[in-house]
């Protein structure tokens, strides 16, 4: 009997090994461990054994049964695993095929530059002021210390509609309007972005329509050094932390003193390159202390209040920053141009 059991175990284990799929394995299970299987038969024959032999033989039967059982389970797990792998293998795809495209547009490069500047100054406590593009001569010129007859306001340079109404030539009238609204009480702290128009023929460097951003701060005790500090802060945030700025004396009718502001070249770091034409500096802004006539006309006491103002051209900044060679690109809106400004 013992030999018979050992032989059965041997046989069963061999068949388990030989089973190539789950069905064959199940056949083995039924054949050896089933109710009609040989081991059950052996158990049935145990009645003929002596009481001494019975527990020994019983233990042996269990041992054999467990051995087969565990071999079956092991094999079953293995076969199941194989089955899953086979199924997954059949589900494999080509990951190099293109993904389903998600359509994305993006900001116009000028908006990109303008929003960056806006956000930078918002961070410094400025608000954004906007005003009309079709403007009164008074706000565009007179309130900015450009009285009638001033050579800088020639009919030839501006798009007039009537003698008193024109397309604004700069965003400065927004400053004049905002100051007027403050009725002589500071502080005023604004950034004015917007479209402006000049009577220029469109070519690679001129556009009859372009954009400007100006800033204005009016309060008691505003100093020219505050202008320098503010613009240095701006230059560093906009063009890199190791940037520096310099003031060169200049002239604008609405500021006194007036300066042109250069930023150390962000391309070469100031050593000189073709972007900065070898000077190490790039002219970015015009600025100055608000002319007392401008303050007075807007209702501020120029003995009590001082202020600074600055202005810059997003087209110029975008051209320098992105290496754009022709200002007309901004207004032609070639998709192949626009889509180059997609990155965050």
């Amino acid at each position, binding site marked *: 009997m013992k030999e018979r059991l050992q032989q059965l175990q041997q046989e069963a284990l061999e068949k388990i090994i030989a089973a190539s799929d789950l069905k064959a394995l199940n056949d083995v299970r039924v054949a050896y461990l089933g109710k009609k299987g040989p081991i059950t038969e052996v158990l049935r024959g145990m009645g003929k054994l002596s009481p001494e032999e019975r527990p020994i033989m019983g233990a042996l039967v269990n041992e054999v049964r467990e051995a087969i059982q565990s071999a079956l389970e092991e094999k079953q797990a293995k076969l199941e695993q194989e089955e899953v792998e086979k199924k997954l293998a059949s589900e494999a795809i080509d990951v190099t*095929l*293109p993904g*389903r*495209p998600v*359509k*994305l*547009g*993006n*900001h*116009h490069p000028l*908006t990109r530059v303008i929003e960056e500047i806006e956000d930078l100054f*918002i961070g410094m406590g*400025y*608000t*954004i002021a906007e005003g*009309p*593009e*079709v*403007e009164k001569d008074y706000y565009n010129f007179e309130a900015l210390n450009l009285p009638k007859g001033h*050579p800088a306001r020639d009919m030839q340079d501006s*798009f*007039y*509609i*009537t003698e008193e*109404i024109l*397309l604004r030539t700069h965003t400065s009238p927004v400053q004049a309007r905002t100051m007027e609204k403050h009725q002589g009480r500071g*502080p005023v*702290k604004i950034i004015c972005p917007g479209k402006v*128009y000049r009577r220029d023929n469109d070519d690679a460097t001129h556009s*009859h*329509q372009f954009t400007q951003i100006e800033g204005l701060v009016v*309060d008691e005790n505003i*100093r*020219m*050094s*505050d202008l*320098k*500090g*503010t613009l*240095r802060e701006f230059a560093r945030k906009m063009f890199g932390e190791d940037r520096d700025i*310099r*003031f*060169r*004396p200049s*002239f604008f009718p609405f500021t*006194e*003193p007036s*300066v042109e502001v250069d930023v150390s070249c962000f391309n070469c770091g100031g050593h000189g390159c073709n972007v900065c034409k070898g000077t190490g500096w790039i002219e970015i802004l015009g600025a100055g*202390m608000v002319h*007392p006539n401008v303050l007075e006309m807007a209702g501020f006491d120029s003995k009590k209040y*001082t202020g600074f103002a600055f202005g810059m051209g997003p087209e110029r900044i975008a051209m320098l920053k992105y290496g754009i060679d022709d200002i007309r690109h*901004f*207004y*032609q*809106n*070639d*998709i*192949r141009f*626009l*889509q180059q400004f997609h990155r965050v």
Partner: protein
Amino acid sequence: MFVSYKWLQEYVDLTGITVKELADRITKSGIEVESVEILNKGAKGVVVGHVLEREQHPNADKLSKCLVDIGEGEPVQIICGAPNVAKGQKVAVAKVGAVLPGNFKIKRAKLRGEESNGMICSLQELGVESKLVPKEYADGIFVFPSDAPVGADALELLNLDDEVLELGLTPNRADCLSMIGVAYEVAAILGRDVKLPTIELHENDENVHDYISVRVEATEDNPLYAGRIVKNVKIGPSPLWMQTRLMAAGIRPHNNVVDITNYILLEYGQPLHAFDYDRLGSKEILVRRAKAGETIITLDDTERTLTEDHLVITNGTEPVALAGVMGGANSEVQNDTTTVFIESAYFTSATIRKASKDHGLRSEASTRFEKGIDPARTKEALDRAAALMVEYAGGEVVGGVVEVNTLKQEKVTVTITLDRINRVLGTNITKEEVATILTNLQFAFTEDNEIFTITVPSRRRDISIEEDIIEEVARLYGYDRLPATLPIAESKPGKLTSYQAKRRKVRRYLEDVGLFQAITYSLTSEAKATMFALETAKPIRLALPMSEERSVLRQSLLPHLLEVVSYNRARQVENVAVYETGAVYLTKDAHELPEEKERLAGAITGLWHANLWQGEKKAVDFYVVKGILDGLFHLLGLEQRIEYKQAKREHMHPGRTADILLDGNVIGFVGQLHPRVQKDYDVKETYVFELALTDLLNAEVEDIRYSLIPRFPSITRDIALVVDEQVIAGDIQQAIIEAGGELLKEVTIFDVYKGDRLPDGKKSIAFSLRYFDPERTLTDEEVTAVHEQVIKAVEKQFGATLRG
């Protein structure tokens, strides 16, 4: 303004200051030096030669064979092509080995079989611009005065070794339109003295009043008029040094008398005019406004018709000069002139600007009058000119000056405290430093207890208020020494307005669903101005447009957006999706500012979605664009208040266009372009929209309030309704919603069918209705009851039948 470095040294000691250093310091102190140019442009090896012999070249008609002494042993043979070369001349010879501008190297050569050892040069060949070369040498070689030493450096004699600084002057610095003005500026920068020219004038015993009298009618335009008579002048060339200085400054030499007036203009900034006294035709000068229609032939031989805006110098009856702009041909100094009347006057800028503009004539004189001259120098310049005419034209100065002077000379004084200077600049400049700067500027001042009282010299007309003095101090103190600080003030946070923030979100949304932002021109043609406009008004036209294409302000963004589509299509970009936000301009009254309203417009054409290898390809259609807009209204919280209504609009497809209403008011439209317009723009099927952005963003929206998340299950019922083709889905949906009441929470259209399986003229629309109650679980019976009502309602209203 061109400033000769050599000439400048006559007025300021420039020892130890190189040209480059000078240029840098001038730029840093406020006047931009735009360029520094060496006049000889790299030429070297040019000497003065003496033409000993000149004969015809044996083999060439237009060439001369010359024997030239160049101060180096044996004379050399040089072949010369200039028509004016002659025996006995002193000429500029580029020796063998010399280099001429443009890196042109002179070599020994054979010309038509004759040896040539060098080249006799014209001024042009030495780097002088053609328009500056004296007329007599314009078509040939330059001839030196006979005393020029043979073998001397010709470039040095011609002052071509000089360097010229080009100053870019801002309009306030007209004082630097003269050498003396520049000298004051440079002296202030360097802290050195200014040496003014000394004038030694010897007058004869005669009285100028016996020669001429002056009357000024237009004293407002001409507050100061002065003149002198110089007799017995001999017209000839001016000295070489004067000619070379004029050329360096950009003025062509003519003759001694004219050159002297130009030289004084450059030196003092005072324009002068020399009349031939004998050709004046009278013994009087009358300055008046021209009569309308009066004419004058100016020095450039052009007849000019005048108006009452123009100021003229007359001989009492007829004009002899267009004041401050150009002299008349009738009284021009000529080779036989012997008596000269020199005019030195102060004309105010407005009248000169008008005349200069009206006649398209900008001269060195008019430029200076326009920008404003210093009347304090007017008479000094006159004396200096007279003295030079004695010296270089052999003249004799008649005693006295004729003069009409109604000038009100007001001294400009500015008082400012040291504290004010430092408070405006944010500096700690000492009173000694301020005093040094004012001294260097040669401003007279007193200082008492840190209060400066400054008398501004008349040459600095740009200075009249405290801030002007602050600027002078700042620029000479040095802006690089200005500290960098931030405003000391209560710090308030900056923030976008709600409108600005929403506008940014709208833009971002459109970009994120696939549209590119475009920015187009506000000016358009009259025809395009009102095309597509949501509201139209009388077109706003520019007074002086540059072209018809850019003559009127737009009332819709679409015409230019369609140009963008067309522009891209012409460049093989077929799939275009663009939007723009921007103003349109609507006028009510031409004398008031127009209303500017912001619009949002878009244009989409071509494929909307394509994933070709998976067989997906979707062209843009009405519903793509509508979906984008639905998303936009959802973003703005307006989705419940928006309605689309089938509409007919000019330029739009009559069957594929909808007006968009917000709270019942039209705020925009969406649809396909009319095929005719597509053809006009040369674009394919294109869908567009335009919305009144201002209204959309200003629409009041309730704040977000949380509502219960449903805890109870919902029940969904689908119905397919067969209706007449003309019935529109929106109406049925509306009816379902109304009939469904409180429990019906969502109605979705999931199928639309038209075809064989339905009778002609019928279509089927399938709706999915979702019912729920946030408070409890609905029973089947309740839902069925409501659902039955819905079905009854649509059957009644639209004759709908349930599709089996």
